[in-house]
């Protein structure tokens, strides 16, 4: 164990030496350049702003609502508005086209559902197959509330059950109670 510090220094030296070697070689610089280029590429990709033009304000609002309501099918946990996926861009474009054609909110939703299913909607429609999805949480809540309510009432009942409360005390019990009170009372008064 005593040799371990020495060993560590040796290995640290080895690391320095190898990193120096990398620095000295051109590979390091090209690697750095590639990394920088990657960051640059990412930044420019994110900075790209999609300019979407509409004729009226209500069209623009509908567009904003729709792309917030529709799910990106590739990323699944993002809506069309948030997603950078290729398909999301195509579907945003299609949404815009449909709006410019004068389609209503329902018609656009119908268009998407006909091709991608209910999954494309963030709010699933209420129908036989989605009943559980919609009502299971409420059912579970009611069940738990009922259970807790009954449990609470039962514990309250057992605590104040008239059968458990003695109606008379022996003199010994009264003495004990009195001595306990005497012990505690002075403290409480201070």
């Amino acid at each position, binding site marked *: 164990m005593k040799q371990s510090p020495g060993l560590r220094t040796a290995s640290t030296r080895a690391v320095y030496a190898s990193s120096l070697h990398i620095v000295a070689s051109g590979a390091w610089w090209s690697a750095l350049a590639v990394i920088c280029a990657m960051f640059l590429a990412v930044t420019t990709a994110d900075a790209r702003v999609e300019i979407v033009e509409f004729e009226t304000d209500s069209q623009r609002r509908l567009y904003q609502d729709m792309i917030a309501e529709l799910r990106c*099918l*590739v990323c*699944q946990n993002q809506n069309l508005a948030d997603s950078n996926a*290729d*398909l999301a861009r*195509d*579907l945003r474009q*299609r949404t815009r086209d449909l709006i410019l054609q004068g389609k209503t909110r329902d018609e656009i939703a119908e268009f998407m*559902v*006909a*091709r*991608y*299913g209910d*999954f494309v909607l963030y709010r699933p429609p209420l129908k036989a197959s989605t009943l559980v999805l919609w009502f299971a949480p409420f059912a579970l809540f009611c069940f738990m509330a009922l259970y807790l309510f009954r449990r609470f009432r039962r514990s309250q009942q057992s605590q104040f059950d008239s059968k458990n409360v003695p109606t008379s005390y022996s003199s010994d019990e009264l003495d004990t109670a009195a001595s306990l009170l005497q012990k505690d009372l002075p403290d409480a008064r201070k």
Partner: protein
Amino acid sequence: MYRFWYPLIAFVIVSGFLWLGLDLKPREIPSVLVDKPAPEFSTKRLLTDNQITSTDLIGKPWVLNVWASWCVACRQEHPLFNDLAKRSEITILGLNYKDKPVEAAEWLQNLGNPYDLIAVDDTGNIGIEYGVYGVPETFLIDHHGMIRYKHIGPVSAQDMEQILLPRIRSMLQDSKT
């Protein structure tokens, strides 16, 4: 003293749900287009000026395989389609999805061309009509022009043998009777 069993029962129920969850594939969105008419399209054939119209195919069953040269998983399933082209008389239509025609042609030259026809979908609009959300996807369409099956993601050898081929055979049989 049944109450001591409650945690165990709860554990078994939760484990049961988790066990079922292992087999779910949330990535695979069930297609609403199965048993619906295949959306019609008319587009260019790859590297030609000829048009291809999907309704021309009515009368015989066909396979629609959505692929692209940039798609890595397509490479994985491609040998199986080469094989299918040799083994079956079924018409295989490749939908070249958002690809560069030259790269697509090169890709086929290198890996083999199983397609009887190749339709170009450079904008992805045909893909949207078919509810394509990832490449590759494969559709089986019968001689009435109805979509009979949709496979999402790369086809494995097992998928081909156990799911696609039996369906293709029965579609061919149906079209002849």
